[in-house]
C-alpha cells in the first residue's frame, strides 16, 4: 500500500493540458508583456506625479507672479479629443474582431488623427499658434517648480502620445496590407487606453487642481 501511495505522489499526470495557467496562459505573450510594461510605465508616471506632489505640498506659493495659469477650457477640449480616440481604437478592435480589415484601417487612421490633433494642441499650448503660448507668457522650464513639473509631466505624456501615434501608424500599415491580426490591434488598444488613463490623472492633478 505504501508503495502505491508513494507512486501516486511521484508520478502525477500533467496538472492540466497545455497551457498550464488558466488565467494567463491563454493570453498571447505580447498581451501579457504589454500589461506588464504598462504597470511598469505607470510607475514612472507615479514617480513624476509623486515628485510633483512633494514639491507642491512643500511650497508656500506654487504659482509665482508673472506666471500664467493653465487654460482649462482648451485642455478640456484636448481631453475630449483623447477620450474620443479611445473610442475609435475600440471600434478598430471591434471591426478587427469581425474581420473587416478596411473598417479596421479606417478607425485606426481616425485614432492616429485624433492623437496627432492632441499633439498639435499641446504644441499650441506650449509654443502658441493663435495665442502666444505658455512659454511666451512666462512659463519657462527651470524658472520655477510649477513650470518645471508642468513641462516634465505633460511632456513625458506627450512623448507617450507621439510614440503611440507612431505605433498606430505601424499597425495601420499592417492593416492596410491585410496582415494586422486581432491580437495586434488589441495590444495597441491597451497601450492607447493607458495613455488616456494617465492623461485623466494629469488633467485632474495638474490642470483642474490649479493653484489660484
Amino acid at each position, binding site marked *: 500500500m505504501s508503495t502505491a501511495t508513494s507512486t501516486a505522489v511521484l508520478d502525477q499526470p500533467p496538472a492540466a493540458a497545455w497551457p*498550464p495557467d488558466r488565467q494567463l496562459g491563454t493570453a498571447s505573450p505580447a498581451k501579457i508583456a504589454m500589461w506588464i510594461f504598462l504597470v511598469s510605465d505607470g510607475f514612472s508616471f507615479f514617480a513624476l506625479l509623486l515628485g510633483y506632489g512633494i514639491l507642491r505640498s512643500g511650497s508656500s506659493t506654487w504659482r509665482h507672479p508673472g506666471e500664467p495659469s493653465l487654460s482649462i477650457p482648451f485642455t478640456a477640449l484636448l481631453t475630449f479629443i483623447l477620450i474620443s480616440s479611445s473610442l475609435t481604437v475600440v471600434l478598430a478592435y471591434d471591426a478587427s474582431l469581425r474581420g473587416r480589415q478596411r473598417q479596421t484601417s479606417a478607425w485606426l487612421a481616425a485614432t492616429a488623427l485624433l492623437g496627432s490633433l492632441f499633439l498639435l494642441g499641446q504644441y499650441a499650448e506650449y509654443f502658441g499658434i493663435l495665442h502666444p503660448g505658455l512659454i511666451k507668457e512666462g512659463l519657462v522650464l527651470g524658472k520655477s517648480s510649477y513650470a518645471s513639473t508642468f513641462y516634465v509631466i505633460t511632456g513625458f505624456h506627450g512623448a507617450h502620445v507621439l510614440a503611440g501615434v507612431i505605433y498606430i501608424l505601424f499597425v495601420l500599415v499592417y492593416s492596410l496590407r491585410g496582415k494586422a491580426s486581432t491580437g495586434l490591434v488589441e495590444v495597441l488598444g491597451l497601450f492607447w487606453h493607458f495613455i488616456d488613463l494617465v492623461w485623466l490623472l494629469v488633467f485632474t492633478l495638474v490642470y483642474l487642481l490649479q493653484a489660484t
Partner: protein
Amino acid sequence: MTAHNETGELQPIHHEPTSFFLKYLWSTDHKMIAKQFMWAGLVFLLIGGTLAMMIRWQWAFPGAPVPILGSILLRGSGGVIGPAQYMTIFTTHGLIMIFFAITPLLIGMFGNFLIPLQIGARDMAFPWLNALSFWMYALSLVLVIASLFGNLGPAGAGWTTYPPLSTNLGTPGSGQTLMVAAVFVTGVGSIMGGVNYVTTIIRLRAPGMDYFRMPLTIWGLFLTAILNVLFVPVLGSAAFLLLLDRMFGTQFFIAGSVTGAPAGDPIMFQHLFWIFGHPEVYILILPAWGIIGDLFSFFSRKPANFYRGTVGAMIAVTVLSAVVYGHHMFQTGMSPMLGKSFMVLTLIISIPSVMLVLNWLRTLWGGSIRLTVPMLFALGTMFVFGVGGLTGLYLGAVVPDIYLHDTMFVVGHFHFTMAAASFLATFAGLYFWFPKMFGKRLNDTLGKIHFWMSSVFITLVFGGQLLAGYAGQSRRLYDPYQYSFLTRLHGLNRWTSYAAFLLLLGQFVFIFNFFRTMFFVKASGMEANPWQVSTLEWAIPSPPPYHNFDTIPIVVRGPHEFANPVVLERLGRDWIGQAEELPEAMPGSARKAGT
C-alpha cells in the same frame, strides 16, 4: 498530443545562425546572451573589486602612494589618492558593483540561462528584446567607461547620488552626468529584461510545470523580475529629473537657499531613490536565495523543506520590500510616527527571512550532505546573509539607527547582504551551472581554495567594517584618522585591509581555474548530469543544443525529488528527473519523458 502541437506552434525550432554577427554579437539565443552577460559582468566585477582595493589601501595607509595601480591611474599625484579622487573611487566602486557587475551576473546571466532551461522552454518569449536588453546594458558600460574620463573627474556623489552633491553645485563634472545617464540606460535594459522574464515564466512553462513545481531559482528570478519591472522606472524618473537638473537648469533637487528663489527639494530625491533602492537590495538577493535554496536540496539529497513555505516567504519579502523604504531616511526629519511605521514594517521582514533560513537548515538537517564546491558556496552565502540580516535589525529600528546611521556599520551591513551574499551565491551558481554552460567542470580543488579564501576573508573584511562603524567611524571619510577619536581604529582598519587584499588574491585562483577550464581542458568525459539532480536542464546534453529541447518535456513532479524509496527500488538511484517517467509505475502508459 495536442499539448505538443500547441507548444510547437508557440515555440518553433529555429536553425542556429552561422554568421559571426548573429551568432556572437546580435545573438537572440538566451544561452549566448547569458554568456555575454557573464563576460561583461565578470570583467566589471574585477574592475569594481580593484577599486575597492584602492579604498582599502587608503584606509590602511592614508597618503601613501598606491602600489602598481597608483602609477597607472593616479600619475598626476604620484600614486597618492587625493580627497576628490577618493570620492570618485568609492562612488564608481559602488555603482559598478551594483548596477554593472552583480545585477548582470545574477539576473542577466542566470536569468537568461536558467529561465528557459528550467521551465522547459526553447527560448525567451521575446528573443529579440532579450538581445536589445543586453545591448542597452553594453551601451551603459560605454557610458560608465566614458564617465571615468569626464571633464573635472568621474562621478563623485556616492552610489546613492544624493543631491545637492550630485547636482552641478557639488559635482560639476561631465563624469557625474555620464554616470547618471549610464544608470538610466541600464535601467531601461533591466525593464526590458524584466518584462521578458515575467512573460516567459507566465507563458512558456512546459506542460505540467505548475508554479509550485518551478525550481526555487526560478521563483527568485521571477520575483526579482517583478520588482525590477515595478521599481526601476521610479529610479529612471529620478535619474531623468536629475539629468534635467544637471543639463537643463531645472531645480527639482536644489533647495531654495542655494538658488535664491524657492525651488526644489533634495529630500525628494531620497524618496524617489529609496522607493527604488529598497526593493533593489531584494532584487539582488532574491535570485541568490533561490539558487541556494535549490542547492541545499540538491546536495543534501533531500526535498527542500516546506517548499511552499519558502516560496511564500520569498513572495512575502517581495511584497514587504515595497513598503519599507523609509528606514533609509529616519534622519531626514521624517515624522516620528511615520518613522515608527517604517520601523515596524521593516522588522516584520525578519519573519519571512527567518522562515527562509529555517527552511534551509531543516533541508540540511539529516541530509546526506555532499560538500561540493557549489554547496560550500551556498553554505557560505547562508552564513554571510545571516550576519547581514541580523545587523539589519539594528539599522531598521529607529533608536539604534540614530547612532549607527552613516557609519561604517551601515557599510558592513549592506556589504554582508548585498555584496557578500550575492557574490558567494553568484559563484555557487557559476560552479554549479558551468558544466551546463560549457560542457566541462571547473577544477574542484581550486574551487575549494577559492571558496575558503573568499568566504573567510569576505567575512573578515565586512566584519571589520561593522566593528569600525560600531566604534563610530563615519562612512566615506577620506582619512578617518584626522579625527583624533578614530586614530585608534587604524590598526583594525589596516588588518581589515589585509583581509581585503587576500580576498582579491583568492579571486585570482578562480580566474586561473576559469581560463584553464575554458580554454585548456577538453570537453569530454563529463557525465550528462554530474550533480545527479532532477531539474529539467540536466536532462538535456551539456552544452544544450540551440533549441534546448527536441520535444518540450511534460513535467510530472516537483524540482527536488530525492531519496524516494520507490525510485531507489526501481531505478537504483536516489533522484528522478522532473519529466522522467517512473518505470512500471503506470503500466501501458504512452507518455514519453522528455529526454
